[in-house]
């Protein structure tokens, strides 16, 4: 893929910036102008007309304010009102991915179609190989009966002319767990029971029809309108997300109004120590393998979709968990805000009482832009706690397993394997591990290919971010099983 973010993704960033500005300027008094400003009358149009574009933008703004478009009861409720309602919340809105009905283009049901490249050949391998007798020859050309077709793809494989094409549904293709499907009108819906909050559908929809509830306004309100201590916890994937040094970024966040900034890499150090100890224990008990547990989308996938894998998932908590625990021990009354690349962290935070809010890097970026803060011009300030190489390397695929391996030493043999991306194929691989076992005994599972640096909440290109993460890791000190953290 050439450009990771499509226009629909970039539009979300613009929406967030506008919303943040609208809050800062006049607490949403003029918020209903946002769709108009983003789609001016004389500008370009991406759907049928400027009015439909604006209608969709309004729903996307709702999500940016922490509302779910499905909650709409009165179409005439204004963005100003939604904004005001957002400011009345005292807790993070519940995490939820949902589809904006009118934006979903109801892509044709995923299917195989025979194009006019078909030569109507004599051999007819498509017809012969079709297990459902769905193919017939009409006017000298093969034709698939959509009512009989089960989308097995046999015809696609066997046609010597490559005349069969597959028309995919991007969100359904992207969802690794089959949580998004069509209703009778062809519109997509997300099954909350099945959804693992990975955000793949959101990143893949070419129409920007999938949204999730943002907590950006809630965090801004806590910072600007309360006198509570609001502490930002920056995920290790932060390196490279904002040009300038990390110290500049700490300064930028303090300028915005956060009272302190701490690295989640510190919590990742703790995870490394505990997970290494757990690994040694499990291997000594004779267990065949263990998987990591820090990716919340994978963790949930294992709970809901791969139950046979559950006994092998590490019970060590995530870097966010340990970081938030440290923060709340020191400042019990503070508001803790995790800032990361991940949407599934919002779900994880719901059962972690120490985490009050979760932001993405993109949302943090929108807050800074709206406030006119330029990171690399901010005063350099340092983190209050120092992290190590191991914790810093978590967000790049291979990093977690590498960190754990470095602490296992030669107590037991460790053979690591990277499960890079929770694709449908990799889910099968994991199932096989659970039922039949496999070659390696330490599986690192990352839902996003490439690791957290490719998360849906990132700003920077994953390649560049991975380099920055690496450079920062190399500048740190080595962790040992005995290192004291915090």
């Amino acid at each position, binding site marked *: 893929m*050439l450009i990771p973010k499509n226009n629909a993704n970039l539009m979300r960033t613009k929406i967030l*910036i506008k919303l943040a500005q609208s809050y800062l300027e006049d607490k949403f008094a003029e918020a209903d102008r946002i769709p108009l400003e983003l789609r001016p009358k004389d500008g370009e149009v991406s759907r049928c007309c400027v009015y439909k574009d604006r209608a969709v933008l309004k729903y996307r703004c709702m999500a940016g304010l922490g509302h779910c478009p499905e909650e709409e009861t009165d179409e005439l409720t204004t963005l100003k009102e939604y904004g005001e309602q957002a400011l009345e919340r005292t807790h993070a809105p519940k995490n939820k991915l949902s589809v904006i009905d009118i934006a979903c283009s109801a892509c044709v049901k995923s299917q195989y179609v025979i194009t006019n490249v078909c030569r109507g050949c004599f051999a007819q391998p498509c017809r012969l190989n079709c297990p459902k007798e769905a193919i017939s020859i009409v006017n000298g050309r093969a034709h698939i009966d959509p009512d009989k077709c089960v989308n097995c793809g046999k015809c696609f494989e066997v046609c010597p002319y490559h005349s069969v094409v597959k028309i995919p549904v991007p969100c359904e293709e992207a969802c690794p767990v089959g949580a998004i499907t069509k209703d009778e009108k062809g519109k997509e819906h997300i099954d909350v029971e099945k959804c693992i909050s990975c955000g793949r559908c959101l990143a893949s929809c070419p129409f920007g029809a999938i949204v999730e509830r943002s907590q950006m306004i809630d965090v801004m309100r806590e910072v600007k309108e309360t006198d509570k201590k609001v502490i930002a916890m920056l995920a290790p994937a932060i390196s490279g997300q904002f040009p300038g040094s990390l110290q500049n970024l700490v300064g930028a966040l303090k300028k915005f109004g956060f009272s302190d900034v701490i690295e989640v890499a510190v919590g990742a150090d703790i995870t490394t120590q505990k997970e290494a100890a757990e690994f040694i224990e499990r291997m000594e008990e004779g267990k065949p393998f263990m998987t990591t547990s820090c990716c919340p989308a994978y963790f949930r996938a294992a709970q809901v979709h791969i139950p046979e894998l559950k006994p092998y998932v590490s019970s060590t908590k995530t870097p966010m968990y340990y970081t938030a625990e440290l923060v709340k021990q020191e400042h019990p009354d503070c508001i803790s805000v995790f800032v990361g690349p991940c949407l599934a962290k919002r779900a994880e935070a719901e059962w972690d009482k120490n985490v009050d809010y979760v932001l993405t890097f*993109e949302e943090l970026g929108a807050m800074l832009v709206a406030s006119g803060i*330029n990171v*690399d*011009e901010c005063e350099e300030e340092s983190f209050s706690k120092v992290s190590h190489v191991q914790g810093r390397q978590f967000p790049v695929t291979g990093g977690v397993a590498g960190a754990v391996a470095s602490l296992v030493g030669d107590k037991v043999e460790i053979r690591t394997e990277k499960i890079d991306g929770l694709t449908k194929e990799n889910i099968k691989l994991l199932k096989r591990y659970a039922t039949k076992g496999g070659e390696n005994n330490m599986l690192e599972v990352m839902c996003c290919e490439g690791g957290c640096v490719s998360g849906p909440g990132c700003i*920077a*290109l994953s390649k560049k971010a991975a380099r920055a993460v690496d450079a920062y890791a190399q500048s740190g000190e080595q962790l040992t099983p005995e290192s004291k953290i915090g």
Partner: protein
Amino acid sequence: MKKIKVRICVGTSCFVMGSAQIQSLEFNAPSDIADEIEIVEERCMNLCKDITRKRNRGPFVYVDDELIEEATYEKVVAKIREKLQK
């Protein structure tokens, strides 16, 4: 031949608004332009703060001396090609 200079603003405003994506040019620029360009990261050029513009028209990218507003990967590539043709 002198290379075309592509100056991508990586100030916070431009970076967040999408110049980060334009950096794809560093990795997989189309083959016809890949060897003809030199990519430079610029710090905030203060164009984002220019209040005479009604709104922030970032991200900003210069292709040689020509400014591209609301720059996208496609726009920048098109501009580079246009320059190469001259």
